[in-house]
């Protein structure tokens, strides 16, 4: 009986703490969101650049792109974050936020470039020929005809990558960013109650992922208009 009442008490403590800590967590959630949005946006730019290098058919550019993807995929994200944080900060002053964001963007960019390369190459080469046969240049056809179709096809895997990127931002805790995970572990150890705070932070991550999923779904719906 003691056991059961203990868990019931725990259950109510959880909600008590969830509400009482909401100020701190919401601030941390906003930081997580900022880290995610910046790293995704910059990651898309990096990803597109390296995807284009990869399909350029110019050996040296393809090689650069391959090397980038190999390095990023071949090393743990936490190692990349530390290298960027400790390495770059030695050379010139990089605010913590940007060290974390750029490390995450650099990491996401590799995966995004592979997603985009795959979808660009999956577009029927007749589309390029049709554009070219109308007098459109290679780059104009790429921009107006190929990339819009490739981006649309890339949305489901991109959405997946965005969610991974959101959760990976928790590693920024290790370079003292007060984002969700850092706040949860700090509060947990200060209050000698790790489990409650970890469960709370899980709720916040679920909310963020749900939010991101809805946005990606809206985009997919908007872009699928030409199928209907």
């Amino acid at each position: 009986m003691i056991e059961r009442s203990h868990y019931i008490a725990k259950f109510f403590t959880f909600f008590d703490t969830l509400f009482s800590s909401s100020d701190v967590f919401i601030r941390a959630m906003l930081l997580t969101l900022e880290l995610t949005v910046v790293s995704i946006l910059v990651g898309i730019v990096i990803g597109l650049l390296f995807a284009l290098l990869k399909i350029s058919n110019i050996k040296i550019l393809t090689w650069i792109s391959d090397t980038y993807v190999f390095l990023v995929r071949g090393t743990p994200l936490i190692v990349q974050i530390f290298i960027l944080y400790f390495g770059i900060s030695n050379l010139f002053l990089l605010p913590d936020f940007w060290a974390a964001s750029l490390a995450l963007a650099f990491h996401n960019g590799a995966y995004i470039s592979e997603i985009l390369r795959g979808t660009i190459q999956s577009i029927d080469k007749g589309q390029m020929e049709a554009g070219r046969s109308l007098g459109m240049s290679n780059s104009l056809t790429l921009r107006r005809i190929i990339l819009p179709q490739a981006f649309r096809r890339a949305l489901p895997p991109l959405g997946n990558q965005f969610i991974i990127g959101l959760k990976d931002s928790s590693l920024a805790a290790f370079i003292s960013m007060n984002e969700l995970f850092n706040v949860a572990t700090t509060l947990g150890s200060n209050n000698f109650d790790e489990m409650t705070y970890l469960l709370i932070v899980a709720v916040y991550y679920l909310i963020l992922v749900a939010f991101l999923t809805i946005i990606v779904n809206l985009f997919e719906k908007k872009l699928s208009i030409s199928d209907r």
Partner: protein
Amino acid sequence: MEQKEMIRIRNLNKSYGNLHVLKDIDMKVLDSDVVCLIGPSGSGKSTLLRCLNYLEKKDSGQILIEGTEVNPGTHDINKIREKVGMVFQHFYLFPHMTVLENVIEAPTHVKKVPKAQAIEEAKALLAKVGLSDKADVYPSKLSGGQKQRVAIARALAMKPDILLFDEPTSALDPELVGEVLATMKELALEGMTMVVVTHEMSFAREVGDWIVFMHNGRVVESGPPKEFFTNPKEERTKEFLQTTVF
């Protein structure tokens, strides 16, 4: 009056590795003529057509467009392509754009035609191919025949001097072939210079001004349709015509 030479090909050769697909092709296309390229599969007719639009690179020989020898090194191929339009077997409409957007895409972005004017011209072209009511739908909603007619309108929007057709009806259901051929015939009657790779012998006979029969990468025989179809000279041509359904 003598007809202007729109395309002149001299000694054109093209290989894919060891496969010699075009062998010493000589050919000319006169202004307002409809030249039909016929022959069995793999005879090189599509490759020849694609060379005319520089989608394939020739290995040697000359291609003269409207009297000027054109080479990718010395000429802006995009400018040539504005004059030489192309219609593909598989249409290749842009699926993320409406029919109207497909037609105005190249005029507005390549020739920088003002959008209002491009739309007006596009609507006239869609009316001409009988698809005025489809201007705002996406290609996925169209039948194959409608798609091909949009593709023709899209090519015409650049106001080309020459139109190339690469087996324009081969991907169509039989009952949709007629509408595309009718559109092409109308174009021919208006005096459009056309080079058509086709298996539609009745179209070639009725609309063609000149027939070129290819086999194994060579031009085996060419001539006006009446003579070509009723009195073929080469053995290979006779064989081909005997096995072909009209």
